[in-house]
């Protein structure tokens, strides 16, 4: 069955590439932006999918990592524009490559701190404590006036990438698309590796994992850090897409949105976040054009998926996941 999932995944990725290319040719940049949004949300959800899908860690606080990635992009860009050092003479930068590395590191470090404490709990307590940490970060951003506080922080000009005109929609889309592809490849490798085996075993039965001599806590913490780092990278791209970062990226609705994407697409499935992001953004666009209350219909779709397709939409068409 994994064969069919691979074909569907490749087809969707091809579609995600062709549609914006055609739209760009036809002079419809809006659809390019829509596709970029899909790619970025899918990357963020792929990060979460490592913790939630492979490790069974229902983090309700991944907006913290997403938002921190966004603020990394915003703050570095703001200091580069104003020429003021951030602290201790460290300058800002407009270079995406640097911003991405800082976002990955910041997301990973924050995930290390949050995970080290949260992973001592399980189940509902884990959900609540990750939510609580994310809310702390949210209120910190709201109340910190230096970087816009509640109003957020604009990025006047999109950050730069060597040899690419990032101000044009299609080149920026391609950057996001390549990073999504890299993220998916990373997820696939990780899932099949020794670490992936231990992580998936920790979700299925942590007593068993410990009994063979692998401490579940360390495996989960490493997964949480990797997960947070990838979601933060997506956050940096999201800030560049909107040329704006605000506390709403850190809000609990954002955390919920990422979870919804994965449940829609398929928890723990490679193409789950891509399917989820496409469905989510397309619904938002199509239904959002008809009614303000489009999320009601999203809720209905989610309800149907949860009741009738526990493996998500990808599970519906490609069957259950099998592990060799």
């Amino acid at each position: 069955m994994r064969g069919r999932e691979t074909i569907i995944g490749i087809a969707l990725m091809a579609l995600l590439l062709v549609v914006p290319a055609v739209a760009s040719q036809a002079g419809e940049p809006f659809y390019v932006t829509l596709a970029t949004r899909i790619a970025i949300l899918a990357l963020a959800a792929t990060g979460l999918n490592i913790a939630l899908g492979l490790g069974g860690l229902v983090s309700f606080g991944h907006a913290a990592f997403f938002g921190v990635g966004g603020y990394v992009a915003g703050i570095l860009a703001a200091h580069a524009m104003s020429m003021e050092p951030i602290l201790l003479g460290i300058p800002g930068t407009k270079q995406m490559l640097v911003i991405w590395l800082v976002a990955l590191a910041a997301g990973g470090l924050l995930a290390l701190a949050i995970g080290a404490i949260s992973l001592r709990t399980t189940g509902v307590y884990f959900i609540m404590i990750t939510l609580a940490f994310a809310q702390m970060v949210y209120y910190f951003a709201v109340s910190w006036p230096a970087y816009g506080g509640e109003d957020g922080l604009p990025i006047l000009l999109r950050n730069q990438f060597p040899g690419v005109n990032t101000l044009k929609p299609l080149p920026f889309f391609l950057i996001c698309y390549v990073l999504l592809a890299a993220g998916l490849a990373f997820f696939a490798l990780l899932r099949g590796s020794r670490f992936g085996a231990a992580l998936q075993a920790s979700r299925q039965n942590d007593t068993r994992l410990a009994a063979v001599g692998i401490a579940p806590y360390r495996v989960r913490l490493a997964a949480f850090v990797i997960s947070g780092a990838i979601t933060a990278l997506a956050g940096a791209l999201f800030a560049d897409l909107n040329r704006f970062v605000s506390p709403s990226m850190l809000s609990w609705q954002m955390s919920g949105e990422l979870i919804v994407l994965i449940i829609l697409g398929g928890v723990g499935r490679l193409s789950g976040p891509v399917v989820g992001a496409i469905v989510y953004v397309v619904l938002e666009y199509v239904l959002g054009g008809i009614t303000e209350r489009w999320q009601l219909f999203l809720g209905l779709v989610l309800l149907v998926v949860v009741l009738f397709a526990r493996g998500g939409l990808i599970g519906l068409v490609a069957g259950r996941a099998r592990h060799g």
Partner: protein
Amino acid sequence: MAEPVLAVSGLVKSFGALRATDTVDLDLRPGEIHALIGPNGAGKSTLINQIAGALRPDAGTIRFAGEDITQLGVAERARRGLGRTFQVSSLAPEFSALRNVMLAVQAVSGSSFRFFRPVMGDARLTGPAMAALERVGLAERARIPAAELSHGERRQLEIAIALALGSKAFLLDEPMAGMGPEGSKRLTGFLDGLRAEAPILLVEHDMNAVFALADRITVLVYGKVIASGSVEQIRRDPAVRKAYLGEGA
């Protein structure tokens, strides 16, 4: 006498007013099968859980392979060669039998913090895992998810995992439970040979198996050791007959 591989001394564990383990002394010597028997609620599983590290004793020490392991966690004890099976099979249900055993192989053959190399094509993992499955007679079922294995097969898989760990001592918690007479017989034969590889602490209700296999038997009642000795001594012990085997046994 050979130095015991595993030595439990003065172990105490209480749950509220209940003393589930009451100053228990127990050891396991190289090459032997030491059976731990007792009526339901005698505290056998509580004792096994303390030896495996899942429960912390209130007092007493546990020494394994010459070291005090009382303060170590489950994973650390397993890495040192304490291989256990569970009273109720505890496996990764979505993983195939093979992948369940591979997890043990990966745990002993180095780090689990390797992020890229695929495990399924890795002969260093699949080879020893298949070998362990073959030993317990499960090779043909290697690709079946653990959740779809029969009850008896899951018991065998638990033992295959303990084998793959290269255990220096086995803690087998009712390995025959729920097995048919045919399965029990086969497993009895298998455990008989296994003791030469590493000693076995065997918790078992199947008295035929216990009397056929055990070099020594320890009887636990209400958390206390009421008798310990050879099969013959235990058979003759009046306190055991009264408390456990029943009059006329």
